[in-house]
Structure formats: structure tokens, C-alpha cells
């Protein structure tokens, strides 16, 4: 049953994901973290992180890895195939329409409405990631002083690095090393 649910949930993600890999993150997060509680936000951010580092499209990586964590290799297969099914059907349909009429006009209107929506959704996902990075909890705590200094340092440094166009792999490698060193330093001082 879990396999069918994975297929169905990821098919919905594939259908509603407009604008590339990053756009699928808020949708996957809504399904696997918020609705079904298959994993917590921290595990989900790990999936996002690893999807960035491994070769292949980010959206497919995330669907594959999430499916794998939830229900093993069959889960990964179901999630990935589910994710691609809407693309497969729509792709063939649109390709045929395009070769017959040379235009997909009304679809452009829909997409012009969706593009700003995706900006808002990615921003909302980004904020929940920031809260996790800084406070290690999923929703903003009532006592903001519980902020994690390690999170503040690495996030601030990473933001500067990203704005200066440091490559993704270098950034993630460096922030991993920084996390390890700062974590060890804190462990020793406690």
C-alpha cells in the first residue's frame, strides 16, 4: 500500500512542479514531512543536501532518495516513476500538439501565473530551512535565544559564498568540514 501511496504522492508532485528541481522541494516537503510524517524536516533537508551533491537532476534525486528512505528500493522506484508519469503523458501530448499546431498558447498563460507562485513557495520552503539551520527545530521557538551559533556562522558564511558564485560542490564540502570542526570544538569545550 505504501508503494501506491508513494507513486500517487510523487505523481502529484510531478504534476504540480513547475520551474525545475528547486520547485519540487516545497511540494515534496509538504507531502513527506507535513502531511504523512514519513520523515522529519531535518531528514528532509539531508535529502535536499545529498540531492545537490549527487549527479543527476535534483528533483529526480530527491524523489529517488525520499522513496528509498521511506520504503527501500521498491519505494524509490515507485516514487521516481510516479514523479515522471505526468511529464511522460504531458510531454507526449504537448509534442503532438506542437507538431500539429506549432503553438501552445493557452499553456503559456497558465505558466505565467505559476511562475510567481513558485517563487513564493520556494521562499516559504527557504524560511523553514533557515529556522531549522539556526534553531535545530521545525517551527520558530518561543525563546529565540536558543539559537545555535554554529548554524549562524555556517549559514552566514555560506550565503556570502553563494552570492559570490562559489560552486555547489565546493560550498557543500566546505560547509561540511566547517560543521565537523565547529561541532568538535563545541564538544571539547562542554
Amino acid at each position, binding site marked *: 500500500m505504501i508503494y501506491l501511496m508513494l507513486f500517487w504522492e510523487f505523481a502529484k508532485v510531478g504534476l504540480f512542479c513547475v520551474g525545475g528541481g528547486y520547485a519540487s522541494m516545497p511540494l515534496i516537503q509538504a507531502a513527506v514531512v507535513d502531511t504523512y510524517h514519513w520523515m522529519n524536516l531535518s531528514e528532509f533537508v539531508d535529502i535536499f543536501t545529498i540531492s545537490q551533491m549527487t549527479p543527476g*537532476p*535534483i528533483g*529526480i534525486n530527491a524523489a529517488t532518495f525520499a522513496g528509498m528512505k521511506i520504503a527501500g528500493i521498491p519505494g524509490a522506484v515507485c516514487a521516481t516513476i510516479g514523479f515522471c508519469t505526468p511529464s511522460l503523458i504531458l510531454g507526449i501530448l504537448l509534442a503532438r500538439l506542437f507538431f500539429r499546431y506549432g503553438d501552445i498558447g493557452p499553456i503559456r498563460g497558465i*505558466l505565467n501565473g505559476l511562475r510567481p507562485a513558485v517563487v513564493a513557495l520556494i521562499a516559504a520552503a527557504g524560511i523553514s530551512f533557515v529556522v531549522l539551520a539556526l534553531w535545530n527545530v521545525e517551527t520558530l521557538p518561543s525563546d529565540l535565544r536558543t539559537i545555535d551559533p554554529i548554524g549562524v556562522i555556517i549559514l552566514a558564511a555560506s550565503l556570502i559564498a553563494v552570492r559570490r558564485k562559489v560552486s555547489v560542490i565546493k560550498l557543500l564540502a566546505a560547509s561540511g568540514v566547517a560543521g565537523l570542526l565547529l561541532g568538535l570544538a563545541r564538544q571539547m569545550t562542554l
Partner: protein
Amino acid sequence: MPQQITVASSCPHFYRKLFQSTFLISAFTVGGGFVIIPLLRAKYVEEYGWLTDKDTLNLVSIAQSMPGVVAVNASIILGYRMAGLRGTLTALAATILPPLITLSIISCAYDWFASNPYVRYALKGMQCGATALIVNVAIDLLQKQLRKKLLFPLAIIAATFTANFIFGINLMLLILIDGILGLLFLRGSQYGK
């Protein structure tokens, strides 16, 4: 670039070549999506001559505006153009198999590693790095929309953000509403791109 376009599917070992080239591109491209498209083009148009340049550009623009992942959409549509449904399925399988294999391996290691405190420290650092990446994407996209100075799309951003982040309204419902708004009010060319 070959001027004469061969009928792709009549080429000897067509399916094997299609699978092999797409598999390798998917397996070794970090970042995916848009990075994959010039590579597919170089392979299909310039090396094998299975597609024309104009066809490819048109098809890729459809792939980019469809829902789903751009790299997958592109291989589905290009595969369909070259050899119908069989071409599509071959290219699709070759695109999704590499992540499946890589991540099966990484996932075994992940569960084994994640309980280790040192790995947790490193992962915590990498989570912060990945957070910076998504924040950066959000800032870039927002700037792009602000620069266009169009009222309607900006209103959609504000309303969608509030509805989702403050009121927790279902994402897919919001996307449906925004799609309908776009269909009704945003057909004009100034709203494109």
C-alpha cells in the same frame, strides 16, 4: 554539423546508442536540469545528427515550460521526436536509472553513517550550506520578478506566500488557483519569461 538529418530510428544500434548516451550524460552531470540540455543537444544534433537544431530549441522550450524536471522532460520529448513512444521510454529509463543506482548506494551508507556523531556534525554544516543555496534561489527569483515591475505577478507572490506560510493552505490548491489566474489574466507577452 551534418546537414542531412537521418531518420534516427533506422540508424543501426539506435536504441543502444540512445540509451548509452543519455545514461552517461545523466550519470555524470552534477546539478541536472538546465546543464543537461546543451549536452543532449551536442550528442543528438551535432554528433549523431538525429535532430535538427531548430527542432531541438523548440522542443526544449516546451520541456522547460512543462511541469516536472527539465532534464526528464527534455529526454521524454526529444526521445519522442526521434523514435516515438519507444524512443521516449528508452531515453526516460536512461535518465532515471543513474540516480536510482547512485542513491541506492548512498542511501545504505547514509543510514549507517547518520547515527555517527561526527557525520551528524558534518551533515549539520552541509544543511546550512544547502539552506544558503535555496535562500539564494529564492532571492534571485524574487529580484527577477521585482525588476519586471508588473503588479499582478507581484500580487500573486504576496498572496501565495501569505496563504501558504501564514495560513498553511495546501500548496497544490494554491498552484491550481494561480494557474487559473494566469490562464485568465496573464496571457499577454509582457508576462512571459
